């Protein structure tokens, strides 16, 4: 079925293009299902999907040595886990709070965790995980391993004090850490120019003497090129890098988003969809006669079925036993029992 990560040594080969399209389309269908799961009441709390930003996760994560390199991100984390090859059934299970979930239902949508794939979370407090990413790089450097960290954060997080502290530390010690600002133009409902004094967020690397670039994140082929170049540089030269990747989330902030009309117009949303990374890649595939529109449609139908099956499998699993809450608080002692 889905081969993840995708071999991108020759990204423009027909086979790779199709794989990339399939991965991104799958991610979108998966996220749409997540929204539906939330609305049906099967996932509690808060849930945030990656719809519109798929080229970013596919472009960067396929360029990694998956399982060797480290990835850490905020609460919009499903796409990263999928691209790294985490079990989609286990992700659905986690989101629905089942015993078979990645964290046995205790973490949920915002807190996915799969270290075997190199995923060190899913984190729920804006900016809070960014020093952890620097710490992962510190560990790798100390052990003289050539691991690279992809430290994803949002444009909103780029204002948090701890991000600046982490940038300073990363450059001071030349840690192999790539800070990736996923600039989707909104910190929840606050537009970029209302939350950032300088909207060119990549410049936040400048005062620390860190290499920094602003890149487009809506074209997966360009993203792959950029990602390969920067990841190779960081791996080889052992220094941090800050990239700001311009993308757009046309889903709401969360599955239970406030009224989007408060922060953007329909026209803006429509224009953003013209840059849609999936449409762009589909057009290329059709143009190059790699597949017909009909074949891509069939692919979509097949993927929808796959996602439904994965959902059904996850949904069949039971909720964790109550006893589970006492586990994993300490390594060597139990907490006091309930009343």
């Amino acid at each position, binding site marked *: 079925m889905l081969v993840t990560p995708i071999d991108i040594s020759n990204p423009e080969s027909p086979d790779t293009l199709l794989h990339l399209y399939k991965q991104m389309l799958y991610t979108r269908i998966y996220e749409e299902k997540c929204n539906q799961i939330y609305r049906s009441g099967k*996932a*509690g*709390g*808060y849930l945030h999907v990656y719809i519109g930003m798929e080229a970013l996760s596919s472009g960067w994560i396929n360029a990694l040595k998956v399982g060797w390199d480290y990835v850490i991100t905020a609460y919009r984390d499903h796409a990263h886990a999928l691209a790294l090859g985490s079990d989609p059934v286990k992700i659905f299970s*986690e989101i*629905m*709070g*089942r015993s078979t979930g990645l964290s046995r*239902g*205790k*973490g*949920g*949508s*915002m*807190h996915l965790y799969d270290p075997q794939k190199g995923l060190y979370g899913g984190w*729920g*407090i*804006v*900016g*809070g995980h960014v020093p952890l990413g620097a710490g992962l790089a510190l560990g790798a450097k100390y052990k003289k391993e050539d691991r690279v960290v992809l430290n994803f954060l949002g444009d*909103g*997080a780029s*204002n*948090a*004090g*701890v991000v600046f502290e982490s940038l300073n530390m990363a450059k001071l010690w030349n840690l192999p850490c790539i800070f990736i600002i996923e600039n989707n133009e909104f*910190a*929840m*409902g*606050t*537009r970029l120019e*209302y*939350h*950032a004094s300088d909207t060119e967020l990549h410049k936040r690397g400048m005062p620390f003497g860190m290499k920094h670039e602003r890149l487009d994140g809506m074209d997966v082929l360009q993203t792959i090129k950029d990602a390969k170049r920067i990841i190779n540089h960081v791996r080889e030269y052992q220094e941090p890098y800050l990239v700001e990747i311009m993308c757009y989330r046309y889903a709401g902030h969360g599955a239970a988003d*406030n009224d989007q009309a*408060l*922060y953007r117009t329909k026209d803006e949303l429509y224009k953003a969809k013209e840059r849609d990374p999936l449409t762009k890649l589909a057009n290329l595939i059709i143009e190059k006669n790699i597949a017909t529109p009909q074949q891509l449609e069939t692919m979509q139908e097949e993927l929808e079925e796959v996602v439904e099956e994965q959902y059904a499998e996850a949904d069949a699993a039971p*909720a*964790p036993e*109550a006893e*589970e*809450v*006492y586990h994993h*608080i300490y390594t060597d002692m139990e*907490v*006091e029992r*309930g*009343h």
Partner: protein
Amino acid sequence: MGAAESIKTNYLNALKEAIDEEMYSDQEMICLGEDIGNLGGAFGVTEGLLDKYGSDRVQDMPIAEECIVGAAVGAALTGRRVMAEMQFIDFISCGFDQIVNNLATFHYRTAGEVAMPVVIRGPAGGYGGGALYHSQMNEGWFCHSPGLKVVCPSTPYDAKGLLKSALRDPNPVIFYEIKELYRKKSLEEFIPVEDYIIPLGKASIRREGEDLTLVTYGQNVYHCLEVADKLEQEGYSVEVIDIRTLVPLDEQTINNSIKKTSRVVTVNEAPRTCGFAGEMLARVCENAFEYLDAPPARCTRLDTPVPWVKPLESFVLPTVDKIFNVCIRTLKY
């Protein structure tokens, strides 16, 4: 009350009105927070304020809680009154240093010269499936920091009256709003249109009883009231006290009740160890020990994080059944 003097309001709108009315009557007051202006707040507590008072007084802030609190302290030094919103009370930890070291101590370190009329408020509490970082009650951290007042209302009437008090208070107040109560229909009540406040430090007796005192606050008030109903069917008469303000604590109301009932159970949804339920029991032991006929007891969240999935979440937090069991043990002692 007739329709002319009062309107039916939910918990969220009561808070909104309190802020609006204080903003209207005090031109020195400003509001700072993430998404509070254009979006009207993540939950809508500040909806409409931007249009009414403009962006000089209702400021959307970057996601930088330490900066929000620090700026609030600085603005207060210039004579402004500040309402600072935490989008979720869990995120208050990012502003912790500014709160406990700067905001809480300013009056003291200037030998009383400077007041800090700052209210930090935000949505708090579990029972909503928000998982580890969107479900907490961390009020204990701030009760443990001298210089701060700590408030947690459970009804629309109290929410408005207490928030108005807090906003007028010259001292910093950490104000815990219970997000699960924001739009709860069953809580809607008629509240006066004319200005009123509820003084900080006054508990409210939600139900009178003779056999046991339940002391609580926030959404656990409703669990306790339900427990009192159930215990009535078993032949027990239970008094339920909603403390409303943690600091200052109305110990007199608690002790007077214990003099009558001789039994006490405290309930809150913060972790057990070093939590405010324990603090209240310690005070009862110090000040009302001779009136007790049974060991004072508490029902709290377990000393665990709050898990994502519902069945586990309710296993961790106090529930009607759990509180009921603790009460029965105390009553039958």
